[in-house]
């Protein structure tokens, strides 16, 4: 069973992840915005990629974390894993919204539309709704164990559903929309690959850092409430 030792560990090591993330992101942003060249077809707009792709990747990464934490929770029933899952869900929701937003802004100049029913966009929209549902479900449940378990169930079901959504939309789109608007990625030149990989790794580290901070936050909230609750119980003695 993971324990508060784990929280102490988070507290001790979180800063290294944060620092590494900031260094990589600073270099990544510098190379991305200042030194790298523009894309042959898209021009300068391709620079949105350096923030959009890491956002989307991090969202997927955070959702996978939520999925694995959920399975782990159902297996071991360790409350701190539930805190981690809850933290991952909040972060995943944030990055999903950011990914959708930056993707939309990128889509306007490249495909001349804010939104298209692309499989990836659709699965991200579904992911967004699932995460909102997850967090809402948690707020509506009072019992701590029930909240953790039901949340975990929803997260697992949603994670399994996501590839099916992606697949079905792909089929559906091939029927209804001409594939003239290609939403596949741009071919990557060498001086684009550097900022992109820097930002990707940086965001992964940043996510780890955020997960560590947020898990602590949720755990401490619980600890504080438990403390106050115990004071309440002791008043009766």
């Amino acid at each position: 069973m993971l324990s508060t030792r784990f929280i102490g560990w988070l507290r001790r090591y979180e800063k290294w992840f944060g620092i590494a993330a900031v260094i990589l992101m600073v270099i990544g942003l510098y190379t991305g915005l200042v030194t790298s060249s523009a894309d042959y077809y898209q021009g300068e707009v391709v620079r949105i990629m350096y923030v959009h792709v890491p956002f989307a990747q991090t969202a997927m990464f955070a959702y996978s974390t939520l999925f694995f934490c959920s399975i782990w929770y159902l297996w071991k029933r360790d409350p701190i894993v539930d805190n981690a899952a809850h933290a991952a869900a909040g972060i995943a929701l944030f990055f999903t919204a950011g990914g959708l937003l930056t993707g939309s802004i990128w889509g306007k100049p490249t495909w001349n539309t804010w939104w298209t029913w692309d499989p990836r966009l659709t699965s991200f929209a579904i992911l967004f709704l699932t995460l909102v549902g997850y967090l809402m479900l948690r707020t509506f449940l009072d019992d701590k164990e029930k909240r953790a378990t039901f949340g975990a169930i929803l997260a697992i079901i949603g994670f399994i559903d996501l590839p099916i959504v992606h697949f079905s939309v792909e089929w559906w789109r091939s029927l209804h929309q001409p594939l003239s608007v290609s939403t596949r990625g741009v071919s990557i030149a060498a001086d684009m690959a550097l900022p992109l990989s820097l930002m990707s790794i940086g965001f992964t580290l940043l996510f780890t850092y955020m997960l560590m901070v947020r898990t602590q936050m949720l755990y401490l909230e619980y600890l504080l409430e438990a403390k106050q609750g115990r004071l309440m119980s002791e008043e009766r003695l």
Partner: protein
Amino acid sequence: MQFFSVIRWIAWKDLLSEYRNRENISSMFFFAINVILIFSFSFSLDPETIKEIMPGIIWVAFGFTAIIGLGKSFLVEVNNDCMEYFQMLPIPKGAIYLGKFLGNFLFMLSVEIVLFPLFVLFFNLDILDQFLKLLLISTVATIGLSALGTLFSALTVQIRAREVMFPILLLPLSVPIFIGAVEATRGILSGDAFALYRHWIELLVVFDVIFVVVSFWIFEFILDY
């Protein structure tokens, strides 16, 4: 064989209660009729347009039916704390899920079968010769919908804001079912060859298998959190 007897007992109980009070089926049925009526007033009824929008109308009506019917399916278990009784039973909990799923599936399917003639009536559709194919698609789509709906009904029935949470959870995750069902229905109504929409039915079957199995496995945690 206790496993199958549990499924049988649960389905027996649900069907008998439903036969006695008819709450669920009648509310599903009349709700769906209202949806059909509103649609028939809001669209012009020339035959070409109807063919284009009909699959959507059919599955919107069935979707609402699912929200009304499946959402309430675990209410009867909560009313007299029967969920607790299930929790204390020394039996595999997945069997309880399958029993509830079976009942829900039968309710949904029977409502859908009754509704098809009404579509013919209100929209002048000529689907009677395709009825068996429509039935096949309804069956595979309804299995998936009931599998997810039964699970989410058990998940949301004990919480505040149950009526809101159930569709919020069910609808996004059942997007593949609706896409598959609408496309296959469209294929039938426009008289396409079976091979042209067969892959949608296969998709629905895959979805059904995955979600029945996963829900069956995961249901234990809902009862025994």
